[in-house]
């Protein structure tokens, strides 16, 4: 390694106090400057941070945005979500491929460009989209590719691609993104003009116990998908004896088709930070972390500035709003491309500078979380609701929604609909009403809750969106009647295979087998027994997996089998004469033919014709 690179690595480690717990930050800095973290870099980082090279390699190889091979100066990551595919991402990919002379996954010979596919980047309402280094480019077409590359070659600066910026804070000088918010339907709780600080002020008038009681009485449930009662989570953390406690905001929304947190982070960061501060006050935390997904790095400078502003306004730091006994500050932790880090214990592992693998439970994070301290992990939307509950009252919040699901829900709607974007709806709304609002008259199937949710058909459009019926973290993807539902299920299975951390056997291996079983059916080689195979395997994966990813990964297959039985039954056939449908004699012979360099006289009836 040359001296310059070594100096750079030493600087990166020194910037974070040679602290192995800040490994993510160190690796980001090294990856940014050197465009890779190779074996030598790993060894140096390990020696400086007092860890082992293989541990550093373990972290580097876990996150999609880190690489041990040199990436191009400009890395183009094309979003490969199914919504992007339907919007023409493949043609865009081919245009990039042709113009750069490289295939996805490759780096150009001169080291100028890398081309890659990446899972959903949270821009389904403006697909096809891509990340060019940290810059988000939306509404791509093959025609735009040439001019994009011309600009990049000339300026070497992806920021130069941004002509007109998007609406709202997207045009803020520290964001300057072409991203659009697409807020289609404001609502009473989150997408309002409320002053976020009133909630914080109101909370500080109460005792921490009273704040927790308020949140409990509001019946607020976590908006990340699992729906755990927020107040109960806080009480558990507050009641665990400890010297320190932590509040972490989960801003790692990675569920394919969701982008609501992106809009809250852009438009309502103060509401979120006020919510985190209230949580900290309630549970007795002095430190907070905003875990921001790597895909949203374009928002980082803006969010840092907001935090700084809050420190200056005495809304963060020592003696918040004159309360000498209350000190709290927030740092931002960048993720680096790993869906699993949306799972709270994986997110904590990642914050600690480790591989983003889930932890054993018990103990739960509220008992022993970040660095072993009691930790509250709530998502962006949940913490934003907190500010408003404290401002308005638990009763006000509970008056909206259904008995088991109070308040409103932000939905990210995309796919085959006229008005993709963000909708704030009251819990209990039916799917039909949502589709009506979004202009998805021709919807034949919708994904409720993203890959880990349910894919439902027309017969289910009367169902209600709430924890008692169809729960959703907020991703609604519409498919019209021209789409192949099995292709959608297969896409989501590929997503889970890609994003499984691989810690436990059923999730690491079982999902691959599920996908292969589905492929067999899609090829028309399936038999009725294959449906039982899929069901039984799904059952094992759900029952034995270690975390939520494996508990939900069979959902795309199970829900399509449940709601689209005719599609499956049209694809599977009973074979007469005991022949296995999945067995293709011609395919089975291929390898032998190649070895023998001749065809079979018996099993190749067209032998004579083809010679």
């Amino acid at each position, binding site marked *: 390694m040359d001296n310059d690179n070594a100096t750079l690595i030493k600087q990166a480690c020194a910037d974070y106090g040679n602290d192995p717990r800040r490994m993510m930050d160190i690796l980001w800095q090294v990856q940014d400057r050197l465009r890779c973290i190779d074996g030598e870099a790993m060894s140096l980082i390990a020696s400086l941070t007092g860890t082992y090279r*293989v541990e550093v*390699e373990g972290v580097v190889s876990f996150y999609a945005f880190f690489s041990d091979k040199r990436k191009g100066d400009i890395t183009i990551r094309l979003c490969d979500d199914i919504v992007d595919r339907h919007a023409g991402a493949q043609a865009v990919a081919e245009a990039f491929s042709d113009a750069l002379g490289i295939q996805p996954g490759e780096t150009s010979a001169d080291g100028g460009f890398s081309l890659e596919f990446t899972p959903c980047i949270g821009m389904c309402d403006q697909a096809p989209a891509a990340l060019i280094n940290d810059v988000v480019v939306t509404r791509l077409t093959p025609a735009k590719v040439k001019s994009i590359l011309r600009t990049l070659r000339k300026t070497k600066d992806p920021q130069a691609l941004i002509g007109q910026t998007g609406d709202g804070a997207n045009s803020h000088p520290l964001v300057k993104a072409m991203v659009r918010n697409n807020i289609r339907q404001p609502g009473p709780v989150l997408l309002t003009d409320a002053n976020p600080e009133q909630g914080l002020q109101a909370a500080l008038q109460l005792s921490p116990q009273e704040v927790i009681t308020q949140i409990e009485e509001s019946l607020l449930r976590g908006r990340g998908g699992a729906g755990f009662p927020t107040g109960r989570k806080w009480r558990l953390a507050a009641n665990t004896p400890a010297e320190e406690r932590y509040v972490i905001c989960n801003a790692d929304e990675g569920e394919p088709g969701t982008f609501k947190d992106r809009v809250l982070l852009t438009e309502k960061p103060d509401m979120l930070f006020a919510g985190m501060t209230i949580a900290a006050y309630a549970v007795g935390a002095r430190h907070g972390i905003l875990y921001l997904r790597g895909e949203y790095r374009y928002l980082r400078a803006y969010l840092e500035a907001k935090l700084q502003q809050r420190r200056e306004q005495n809304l963060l730091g020592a003696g918040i709003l004159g309360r000498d006994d209350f000190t709290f500050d927030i740092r931002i932790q960048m993720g680096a491309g790993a869906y699993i880090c949306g799972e709270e214990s994986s997110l904590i592992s990642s914050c600690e500078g480790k591989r983003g693998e889930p932890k054993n439970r*018990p103990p739960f994070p509220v008992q022993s979380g970040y660095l072993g301290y009691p930790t509250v992990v709530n998502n962006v939307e949940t913490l934003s609701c907190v500010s408003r509950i404290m401002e308005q009252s638990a009763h006000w919040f509970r008056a909206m929604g259904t008995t088991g699901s109070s308040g409103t829900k932000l939905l990210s709607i995309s796919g085959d609909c006229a008005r993709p974007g963000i909708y704030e709806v009251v819990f209990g709304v039916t799917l039909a009403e949502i589709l009506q609002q979004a202009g998805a008259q021709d919807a034949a199937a919708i994904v409720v809750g993203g890959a880990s949710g349910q894919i439902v058909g027309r017969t289910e459009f009367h169902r209600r969106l709430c924890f008692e019926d169809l729960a959703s973290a907020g991703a609604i993807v519409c498919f019209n009647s021209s789409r192949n539902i099995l292709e959608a299920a297969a896409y989501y299975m590929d997503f889970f295979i890609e994003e499984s951390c691989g*810690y436990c056997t059923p999730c*690491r291996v079982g999902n691959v087998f599920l996908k292969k079983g589905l492929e067999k059916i899609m090829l028309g080689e399936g038999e009725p027994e294959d449906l039982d195979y899929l069901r039984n395997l799904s059952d094992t994966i759900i029952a*034995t997996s270690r975390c939520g990813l494996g508990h939900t990964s069979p959902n795309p297959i199970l829900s399509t089998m449940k709601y689209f039985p005719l599609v499956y039954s049209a694809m599977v056939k009973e074979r007469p004469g005991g022949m296995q449908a999945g067995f293709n004699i011609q395919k089975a012979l291929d390898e032998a033919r190649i070895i023998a360099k001749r065809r079979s006289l018996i099993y190749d009836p067209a032998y004579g014709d083809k010679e």
Partner: protein
Amino acid sequence: MSTEFEFTIDGETVVAKPGQTLMDACDDAGVYIPRLCDVEGLVPQGSCRVCTVKVNGRTVAACTQPAEPGVVVENDTPQVQGYRRDLVRMLFHEGNHLCPICEASGRCELQAMAYRLGISQDSLYPYLQPVRPVDASHPDIALDTNRCILCGRCIRASRDVDGKNIFEYVGRGIHKRIGVNAENLAATDASIDDYAMSLEVCPVGCIIRKREGFFAPIGQRQFDNKPIGWEIEARHKNRIAVHQIDPSEEQS
């Protein structure tokens, strides 16, 4: 020190001490819960999931689940054994497990577990047939990760017992594998005398001690005469016979 308490497993009462996992308590009582990634002396990690049991109707890994007073545990039931069979099969199909030519045959815990669970033939799962390079760089040790089941026992043994950190997981998902703390094993400070390289640690034939292969003749190998888990069941106060599943009873 708080006092001992009781819970039931398959209807039988087990006495546990505070702080014990379900697995610890059952081991002491002579009730065997199948496991691959867990081994006595190492911190449990709950990754293979073969020790899955049902506790009050919910599935959990017995090696990491704390024992609690009064819980009702299901271990040797058709459903739970079915899950285990699926998991063991997944491991067989994920790697290359060619028992007839593997030097670990007869002392391989994966193979022994398959026999114990009544797996005697192919399943519907596809074979992934990985092609991973063999690291034979070290003078005394070779690594054939095609046979690795990612139990991580070598990682914990090297880190917690030897204090060396020779191994760690790298990659993720189906590409996850065991990495070594250098370009290859020869460049690490691995020694044949490390606990991590001992026969007890690697449950399969992935860590290979050179020039020692096939050291025990057929008939005298570890699992030739007694099934895996027998030594735990031998602790049982009533010495119940080991229950092996007849392959003909096996559910598909």
